[in-house]
């Protein structure tokens, strides 16, 4: 029996490989492309008969090239990228030597694995839909390599296999969903360093003048929030990301030392840890859940101060909430915030030191201004008002395209010379002026506002909502949020960036085809976004906690027996559904009574030693049997006559005839 694959099977396999490899090209090193193209090209040449299967030397060379490229590419080991690259190379090279059905099946199975692996790079709805297409092609190929040469033409074969693959995968859906919902979810068994090449997006851990403007030119989604209770007013939606304490004369950083994520984690677990007692809860609670897009960074954005959170997150003394690791996948957070709560009524000394630090020299004019204003006012609140009044009364402008300020004395350059800036300029110089006057203050970066999606009942926060503001510590009030930008552009917090820079016409100026600029497109994009949100929230975000909540909801109280019973019931129902769909419940059509009697007649004669061969007409057989069994000749002839009568000349009196057959049959026995 030949286990080789047919030509059509080979074509199927090649199509499956192309479909599986394609999405990886956006994420993995570009040198893979020529290698994969070469492998596919060779395969095609072999198929068309223009080339032979590559020999051992060629194969060794190719594998060597691939592995060499992998080593030279600087991908870390072990990492996801390295694993994916290695698998892709194997996947492509394996196709060079596929002859046997077994090889083809190995290729297809690796293909299935790669389809799943790609979801570690993207879990968007688009990626999922593409994954479904890949699954169909791979399953079609799996059928294709099983087929021997058949009467189908190539076109028929493609259509038939595609239809079969789609049917099978659709019929699998109910069972897949049941397993997905009920299969136990475990905590990660070991931590794998991801180290993907995924770009970091969104707010960074430092802020120089000009950083936030760059971000504000992007229309990408940062996160979505669904409120469980009343939605706070738009101008109160300050999504705190991180707090920048340290100023070096040019840019704002979190700390004097530049911590990486692991050092930061250590800090958040030790001296910079959140102290629950530092919050005096008051005012209304704002419960919400947010789904953050994968940003490649660990920052989460919450309404400060966050009091309760669900999930494994880190929390800092500055009320920040941070993920345990960089977000490589959408992340769901459930939190309860109390925007009116008092924070740090007593300011710990190390926080005070952090909030007063200034570089020893530089920005002399600003320091002089601060001393002058402090002398004029004498108390913190009046001083703050004076500084904000200065922003609104003087010719300060809010713009997405501020002039560059150089490397040194940037605060002076902004406050006295250019006076044109974005939120980072205002927040940075405001905090500088506070500290110069001895008022503890710090810069907060995050997002402000967001776009309400009425269809989906959630808030979408985009990169252009990125914002920077300030917090000052006042005795008796704790940390107070002050947004200097509102002194210049009040519409920024009420109506968003688009309104604030309307006169300038710079909103998403680079994105010519942004749907936000066209009303009806914006409507459609909101609808699409609603679907995406549902996908993120209920499919991608379905985790252990969600499962527990769902089971509790479904069963009332959770118990293993109940779940087992429910799952068994669902499995049985799906089994029945499959039997019905596949037509396995239909009984084969019943043989007519006379045919059954004739068969028994033949069996009876066989016992007497007269076999009826297949295809022998009853009359011929009767003549033969009568000759062999003279004693029964009469019965045989009559039986055959009556039987043929029923078959070829049916009369109304069929019952009588079959009764006669039965009587005659008894005589034969």
């Amino acid at each position, binding site marked *: *029996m030949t286990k080789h694959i047919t030509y059509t099977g080979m074509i199927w396999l090649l199509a499956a490989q192309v479909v599986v490899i394609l999405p990886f090209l956006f994420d993995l090193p570009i040198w893979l492309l020529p290698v994969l193209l070469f492998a596919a090209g060779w395969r095609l040449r072999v198929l068309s008969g223009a080339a032979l299967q590559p020999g051992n030397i060629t194969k060794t060379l190719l594998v060597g090239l691939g592995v060499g490229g992998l080593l030279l590419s600087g991908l870390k080991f072990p990492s996801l990228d390295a694993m994916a690259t290695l698998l892709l190379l194997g996947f492509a090279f394996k196709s060079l030597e596929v002859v046997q*059905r077994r090889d083809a*099946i*190995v290729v297809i*199975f690796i293909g*299935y*694995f790669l*389809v*799943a*692996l790609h*979801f*570690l790079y993207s*879990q968007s709805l688009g*990626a*999922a839909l593409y*994954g479904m297409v890949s*699954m169909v092609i791979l*399953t079609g190929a*799996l*059928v294709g390599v*099983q*087929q*021997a040469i*058949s*009467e*189908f033409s190539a076109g028929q074969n493609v259509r038939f296999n595609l239809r079969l693959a789609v049917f*099978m*995968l659709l*019929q*699998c859906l109910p*069972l*897949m969903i049941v*397993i*997905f919902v009920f*299969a136990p979810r*475990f*905590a*990660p*068994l*070991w*931590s*794998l360093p*991801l180290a993907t090449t995924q770009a970091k997006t969104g707010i960074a851990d430092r802020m120089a003048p000009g950083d936030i403007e760059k971000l504000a030119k992007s229309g990408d989604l940062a996160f979505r929030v669904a409120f469980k209770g009343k939605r706070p007013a738009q101008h109160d939606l300050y999504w705190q990301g991180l707090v920048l304490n340290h100023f070096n004369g040019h840019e704002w950083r979190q700390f004097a030392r530049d911590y990486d994520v692991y050092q930061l984690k250590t800090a958040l677990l030790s001296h910079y840890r959140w102290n629950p007692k530092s919050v005096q809860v008051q005012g209304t609670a704002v419960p919400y859940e947010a789904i953050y897009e994968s940003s490649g960074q660990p920052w989460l954005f919450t309404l400060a101060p966050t009091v309760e959170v669900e999930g494994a997150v880190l929390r800092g003394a500055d009320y920040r909430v941070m993920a345990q690791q960089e977000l*490589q*996948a959408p992340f769901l957070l459930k939190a309860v915030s109390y925007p009116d709560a008092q924070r740090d009524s007593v300011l710990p000394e190390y926080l005070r030191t952090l909030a007063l630090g200034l570089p020893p020299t530089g920005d002399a004019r600003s320091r002089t201004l601060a001393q002058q204003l402090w002398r004029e006012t004498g108390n913190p609140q009046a001083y703050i008002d004076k500084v904000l009044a200065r922003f609104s009364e003087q010719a300060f402008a809010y713009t997405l395209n501020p002039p560059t300020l150089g490397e040194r004395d940037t605060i002076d350059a902004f406050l006295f010379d250019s006076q044109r800036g974005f939120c980072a300029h205002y927040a940075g110089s405001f905090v500088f002026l506070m500290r110069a006057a001895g008022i503890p203050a710090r810069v907060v970066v995050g997002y402000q506002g967001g776009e309400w999606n009425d269809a989906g009942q959630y808030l979408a926060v985009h990169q252009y909502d990125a914002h920077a503001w300030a917090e000052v510590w006042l005795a008796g009030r704790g940390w107070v949020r002050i947004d200097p930008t509102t002194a210049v552009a009040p519409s920024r917090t009420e109506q968003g960036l688009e309104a604030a820079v309307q006169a300038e016409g710079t909103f998403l100026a680079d994105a010519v085809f942004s749907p936000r600029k066209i009303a009806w497109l914006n409507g459609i994009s909101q609808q699409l976004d609603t679907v995406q949100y549902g996908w993120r929230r209920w*499919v*991608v*975000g*379905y*985790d252990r906690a969600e499962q527990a909540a769902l089971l509790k909801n479904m069963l009332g109280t959770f118990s293993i027996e109940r779940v087992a019973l429910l799952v068994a019931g669902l499995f049985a129902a799906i089994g029945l559904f*499959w*039997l019905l769909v596949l*037509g*396995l419940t*239909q009984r*084969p*059509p019943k043989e007519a009574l006379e045919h059954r009697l004739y068969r028994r007649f033949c069996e009876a004669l066989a016992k007497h030693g007269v076999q009826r*061969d*297949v*295809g022998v007409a009853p009359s011929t057989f009767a003549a033969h049997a009568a000759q062999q069994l003279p004693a029964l000749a009469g019965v045989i002839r009559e039986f055959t006559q009556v039987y043929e009568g029923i078959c070829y000349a049916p009369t109304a009196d069929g019952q009588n005839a079959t009764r006669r057959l039965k009587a005659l049959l008894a005589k034969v026995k």
Partner: protein
Amino acid sequence: MATLNLRNIYIIPSKTALGLLSIIALLFLLGINFQNSLVYIISFWLLALLLLNIFYTWRNLAGLTLTAVGIEPCFAGEKAVLEVELSRPTPYAKYALELTWEDAMQVQIDLISTQTARIKLSHSTQQRGRFTPPRLKISTRYPTGLALAWAYVHLDIHGVVYPAPVEKAFQAQGESYGDNSESGLEITGGTNDFGGIRDYQYGDAPKRVHWAKFAQTGKLYTKTFVDYASHEVWLDWETLPMPGIEVRLSHLCRKVLECHQEQRQYGLKLPGKVIAPDKGDAHKARCLQALALFGLAND
């Protein structure tokens, strides 16, 4: 005749399915470690596909009917050829069915646009006698190779295996074999001796046309020949000098074949069975069958 149904179809996941299972397990681990819902989905989807295919593969055999059409007689040591008819009463086409004897004979067949198909399977034979084909295995892995379904079919049919003829038959003394005596009864339509001429009839071999007469008269005549059946050939068990039943049967078998080829009138004498002299295909078959079944029960 045998119809495949729930009672006689066996089905198990194939080795390929074990391979897929390990991929599924790997993906499940990947899903756990990266807490990735979509990886879970692919893992579970493949698991569902594996289970579903047990139903699909089962359906590819279910309802199929196998009927033995017949076995052509053969000589011992040759291949017995069994013709089997497959038919599908269900509306579902059957793909990639494999029919296997236990000793490696394998045939693949589809039933796509036709309801029935006939297929010839051969099986080696060792000795003369009745031949009962061993159980036939019909199996399929269609559509994905993830499940293996099979059924054993005992076909209720018997064939006859003639004794293997010896290379050259023993020539007994005094046997009238080959003796062309003039005194016997002439049998027209023979090949040996010139009998006369008659008018040409359509279909007569050119070799027999009397060309000399044609040259003389311009009319076609056909030469006729006669055989002499005076000494009916008796193939007699008792006259064979060699010992051993099988050896004698093999000799007789060869002689039957020789006599048949030479269009002789021959009879067969076996202990307890005598077949009167005759000629023709049916007679040959009767003689060979008698040899095949000699000494066996239920003759």
